[in-house]
């Protein structure tokens, strides 16, 4: 790799750090309740992805081998999903009367010339208030990115440093636009075939119900390879249409990462740990922030916190 030209002291400092530091090596010192809550929500999210199909499959299994090996599934009063009250992976979840639909799915239907379900309103409001929080808090692909980042650190320790290519920041917007145009022209919801959380939900479901994998497994494999060997969290940064949509919608979110200038020592750790190319150290945090607050947790002097954006 060619030595980059030095533009400022800060970025030179950052470059020097990047060559030695792997984001996964940074310890989240005082994430405290925020990080544990985030991990708990991510665990619940994965719990739903795996647990709901397992529960439904188990209920069906018991029903179909109920009486002397004779299927009684046909005579069930209602399906297991109806009796448990939970349907769907995180992209389209229903818990009892609470209906949620992913805004990306709703937009896809909208551009293809269909109507939008009322179930999209709550997720839409949440995204507009909290920004791109789905990516850091709920998306089942987020822990996979963490694994990929750890793998990058491991490989670097063995002397095989992976590239972290910086594509244009708006790449995901281009991906979103392209996919929506193809959705409108093709009349088929293809954006959801390139959207990792939806793909994960489907593949896990398929595995549990039919014991096999579909084409989505290949998509996930490519995403993981992209993240590991090309750009850290590259799928979330540059490719994911959902992340792009949430970035657009979260533009007016009142939350951001607030820095206490008096405490900050310009150590760059926050910038290095950020998977979303934000720069809390220079107060440049835009709607691309996924609210993971790793920067807050990694700061050695507690100079950062999640707070209200000042105009």
């Amino acid at each position: 790799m060619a030595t980059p030209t030095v533009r400022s002291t800060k970025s030179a400092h950052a470059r020097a750090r990047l060559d030695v530091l792997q984001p996964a090596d940074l310890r989240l010192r005082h994430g405290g309740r925020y990080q544990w809550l985030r991990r708990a929500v991510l665990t619940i999210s994965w719990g739903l992805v795996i647990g709901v199909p397992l529960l439904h499959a188990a209920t069906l299994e018991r029903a179909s081998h109920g009486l002397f090996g004779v299927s009684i599934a046909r005579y069930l009063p209602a399906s297991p999903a109806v009796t448990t009250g939970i349907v769907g992976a995180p992209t389209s979840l229903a818990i009892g009367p609470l209906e949620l639909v992913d805004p990306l799915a709703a937009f896809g239907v909208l551009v293809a010339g269909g109507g939008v379900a009322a179930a999209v309103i709550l997720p839409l409001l949440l995204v507009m208030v909290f920004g791109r929080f789905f990516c850091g808090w709920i998306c089942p692909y987020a822990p996979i990115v963490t694994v990929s980042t750890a793998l990058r650190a491991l490989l670097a320790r063995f002397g095989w440093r992976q590239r972290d290519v910086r594509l244009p920041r708006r790449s995901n917007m281009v991906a979103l636009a392209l996919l929506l145009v193809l959705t409108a022209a093709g009349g088929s919801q293809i954006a959801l075939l390139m959207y990792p959380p939806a793909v994960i939900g489907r593949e896990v479901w398929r595995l549990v119900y039919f014991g096999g994998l579909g084409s989505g497994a290949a998509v996930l494999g490519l995403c993981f390879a992209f993240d590991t060997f090309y750009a850290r969290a590259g799928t979330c940064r540059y490719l994911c249409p959902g992340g792009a949509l949430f970035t657009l919608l979260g533009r007016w979110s009142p939350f951001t990462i607030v820095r206490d200038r008096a405490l900050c020592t310009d150590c760059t750790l926050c910038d290095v740990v950020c998977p979303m190319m934000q720069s809390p150290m220079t107060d440049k945090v835009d709607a691309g922030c996924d609210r993971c607050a790793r920067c807050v947790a990694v700061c050695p002097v507690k100079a950062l916190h999640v707070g209200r954006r000042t105009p």
Partner: protein
Amino acid sequence: MSAPPGDAVSRRDRLGLAAAIGALVVVFRPGRSLARRLRPPGALPPAEFERACIRCYRCAEVCPVKAIRFDTSIDPRDSDTPFIVASERACIACMECTHVCPTDALQPIARDLEVISQRVRLGVPVLSKGKCLAWTGKGICRLCYYVCPYPERAVRLVGVRQGPEFSADACIGCGLCEEACPEGAKAIRIDPMGGTA
């Protein structure tokens, strides 16, 4: 940009990116769905269905008999859309799936035999009399008649041999007859046409 800079984009990266976008456009090229399959009950007509289905798998999740399965086709227009293989596991017409669809790709249909009879058409029944046990006189078989949710309307037993006679007007295309038809015969088939009546 003040964020910590990573590696620069090389010429090879650019070519790779262009190739990836090209592949994306080729794979996702616009066009009609190719699938000619039984869609779940209440499904919109073919082109409209692929437009509305967000591939959330909810319909299959509530199906009490695992009749709904998903396309693994590489063609993204059909990929992950739901369909039914009646000969292996037919629809029991419980209408659960029609009520959970978040985008109304499956239109909600009341769980009422008369309403279902009017609004559900998964396909039309096609009988090959040459294969039918009753019509060929190879045996006494009335399985299709026994499993049909609309006996005497969708299927009647006629003649000396009591062979089945199907009526496309009254048949909802659930495929229970196709599933029940004995392995050696498989004389009745539901021809997919998709959509609500």
